């Protein structure tokens, strides 16, 4: 190629750099993130400012438990509980303990739920936040115990209990013990309710199986994030059983709303304010002039 060629108009491109398959899909670690819904790249910094909601399609991405603490509760008000509880391997499943350890290191949590006491617009609440990054948020003995203790603490202090659910259901590796956690959390919630206390369940993506069929569905007020997957049985299982195509929006928050299963669907940006307002509505007692 001569120097002159460079300035020639309408020249045909003779060569091009072809990125490798890997480079095509690679987004520099940490700087950008891809929305799993609309596949658009977003700067991580912008995404965090936008509460992990995609600026293009409004998709609510998964959040870690600590991220939710940051955006939902009053600053520095949260004190966690029962971080010392340790999962054991009651049925001796191979590599179960190792998987728990790995997820613990990845998330900085001792199990798939973070519990504690915090303040919401100045009001004291007990809170449990499930984290689907830890074993799909599945419920074993420790998850059941932590939630139960958080509910008991709420009952003892006479304060509302709020839960953010995100779970694939019961933890298979703990067998029937994990099933019984559904009953355990329920007896604790019953006592909390008998004390006339408020329980708000906030269902996030995904809330299915044993978690959906226990505490997640029995809030005095049930709220969901937009488009969250919520259901009892898995979509594939149902399709195989009934042998018919299921509607596109099947088991989404909007589907549940249409079928009378939810009180409200609330955008993540408005969640803190709206839930704080609900809590206020349950504590203000006297008519003021």
């Amino acid at each position: 190629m001569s120097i002159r060629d460079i300035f020639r108009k309408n020249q045909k491109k003779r060569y091009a750099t072809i990125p490798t398959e890997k480079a095509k899909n690679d987004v520099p670690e940490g700087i950008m993130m891809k929305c799993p819904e609309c596949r658009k790249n977003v700067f991580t910094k912008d995404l965090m400012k936008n509460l992990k909601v995609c600026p293009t399609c409004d998709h609510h991405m998964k959040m870690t438990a600590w991220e939710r603490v940051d955006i939902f509760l009053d600053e520095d008000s949260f004190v966690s509980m029962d971080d010392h509880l340790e999962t054991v391997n009651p049925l001796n499943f191979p590599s179960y303990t190792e998987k728990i350890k790995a997820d613990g290191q990845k998330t900085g949590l001792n199990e798939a739920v973070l519990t504690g006491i915090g303040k919401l617009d100045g009001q004291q609440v007990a809170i449990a936040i499930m984290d689907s990054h830890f074993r799909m948020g599945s419920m074993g003995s420790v998850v059941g115990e932590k939630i139960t203790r958080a509910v008991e603490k709420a009952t003892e202090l006479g304060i509302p209990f709020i839960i953010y659910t995100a779970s694939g259901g019961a933890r298979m590796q703990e067998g029937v013990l994990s099933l019984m956690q559904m009953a355990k959390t329920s007896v604790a919630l019953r006592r909390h309710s008998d004390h006339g206390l408020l329980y708000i369940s906030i269902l996030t993506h995904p809330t299915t199986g044993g978690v959906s069929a226990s505490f997640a569905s029995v809030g005095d007020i049930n709220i969901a994030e937009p488009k969250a997957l919520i259901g009892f049985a898995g979509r594939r299982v149902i399709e195989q059983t009934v042998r018919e195509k299921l509607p596109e929006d099947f088991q989404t928050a909007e589907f549940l709303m249409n079928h009378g299963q939810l009180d409200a669907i609330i955008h993540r940006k408005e969640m803190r304010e709206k839930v704080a307002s609900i809590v206020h509505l349950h504590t203000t007692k006297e008519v003021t002039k």
Partner: protein
Amino acid sequence: MIKVLPFEEPIVQLKTKIEELKEYTASADVDMSAEIIHLEARLKKLEHEIYENMEPWDRVQVARHPSRPTTRDYIQLLCTDFMELHGDRLYGDDAAIIGGIALFEGRPITIIGHQRGIDTKENIKRNFGMPHPEGYRKALRLMKQAEKFKRPIICMIDTKGAYPGKAAEERGQSEAIARNLVEMAGLKVPVISIVIGEGGSGGALALGVANHIHMLENSTYSVISPEGAASILWKDASLAKQAAEAMKITAPDLKKMEIIDTVIQEVHGGAHKNIEAQAEYMKETLINSLIELEKLTPDELIENRYIKFKNIGEFNE
């Protein structure tokens, strides 16, 4: 003809042999009675060996036996004056759960249970004992009714699980189960649950938040079927036999884990071999449970249930 399970085949073979010899002795002049006596002794020993050492997978087979007695069979044998009550007052009447009022040992009780069919036609009507939300809501309605009239509640658990269907999801399968758990926790009357066949996951637990939980010796109670566990954990449903062992789902396993109160003895080979005798075993356990629980006040009953479930779970503190 009652279906023969693989693990009992040696017994059946020996039995046929004895029958043959008996026939031969009767028809021909040859006297084989010494031989017969010898074989019968061996049969007794073999039965003892096989039925006393059942593997988890054998128990799963017995729990699923097509002739295994159902809730209705036990109601007929244990109770008098049973009046079945229908419907959830909200949507429909789910035939996969039956319930009503009856007399048990002269005492009015409410009795509720999952109901399988005995043949294909009935199974279609009863959805193979897999309830929809209206089934659980009917059960809850009957429990609340029992509470009002201070009747103890007996629940029989026998389901593969709550039905995974489109209509079930639309009508709130999750909520129906969850509601039962929370409401059962607060019942002011004694609640006794007996697992009589398969106790499958949340669909079983929705009748299981009881003061006393008993299991028939060859019944199972689990978070997922052995086939489901095998396909999730090892991506191979044919490993169900291994999963049945690993998941600890049999009555003796649950007793060891202190989740249930009593393992109710079964007649040799399973409840279907002698339903009347099985009902008698069950009756004894039920009477003991009722006597014990009727001493408690309503508050104590709720407290008792609270402590029972609060203590289930294994972890390091």
